[in-house]
């Protein structure tokens, strides 16, 4: 495996349409049972159009994108901003690129995009580079 270079793109992670069942399963496994992820009426009372995906489920997929990068060793840091809602039923594509490499670590810029092209999350991770 060759050393990572700035500009290298990560292999895309495709997330299949996120179902209500998936959101219930994530609510239980993660511990976040906020009704806006489970009940349309609650979501509307919260100012949304209907049930939306947990930002943290999207961030978890971005996490897989990062940790499955072949050059990724230990994860040092990972952050994300949630920039748009991900309605139930959305498909999401997670992608990223290497933006810097120094002192045995690489900084990756990642994003999750809905099937209509809207970016729902942007993030950054710093990983130790596997030698």
């Amino acid at each position, binding site marked *: 495996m060759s050393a990572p270079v700035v500009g290298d793109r990560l292999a895309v992670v495709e997330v299949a349409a996120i179902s209500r069942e998936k959101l219930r399963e994530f609510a239980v496994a*993660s511990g976040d049972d906020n009704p806006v992820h489970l009940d349309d009426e609650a979501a509307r009372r*919260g100012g949304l159009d209907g049930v939306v995906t947990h930002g*943290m489920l999207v961030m*978890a997929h971005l996490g897989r994108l990062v940790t499955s990068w072949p050059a990724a060793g230990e994860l*040092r840091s*990972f*952050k*994300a901003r949630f920039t748009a809602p991900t309605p139930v039923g959305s498909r999401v594509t997670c992608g990223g690129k290497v933006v810097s490499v120094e002192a045995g670590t690489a900084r990756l810029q990642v994003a999750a995009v809905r099937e209509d092209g809207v970016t729902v999350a942007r993030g950054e991770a710093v990983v130790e580079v596997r030698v």
Partner: protein
Amino acid sequence: MMIAPEFVGKRLEPVVLRVPRERVVAFARVIGEVGAVHWDVEAARAAGYPDVVLPPTMLFGLELEVRGEELLVEMGLDPLRVLHAEQSFTYHRSVHAGEELRFESVVADVYRRMGGRLEFVVQETAVYRGGEHLVDLRQVLVIEDEETV
């Protein structure tokens, strides 16, 4: 409505919990994480870990599950209207099933933007295993102020 500035600096009651192995496996499954160290204890031990490893984002929900909405309600907010704006993790050590974890959290900041229409709450959390500092979390929540909309 404005969140009272006295909340800034408020230290929350520490949360202490242990994560069962099956819970780590269930979380890995739902997010599609196939790395064996997250669902197979033998693979985790072969890789040098004491038990299955928590995936990188799992700590967030574990604390939320215990704390619930108490802080938001105390601040006078409707939890349904609070959105998760940002989340960050800084990792010092790996975290594994079965360990006693202690979450120490503080309301780090409360601020307004867009002429007061948006209110933000920042909570910072340090997670410990005994005296070992494992992970730092920082969450930013955002509330759209109904009165100024």
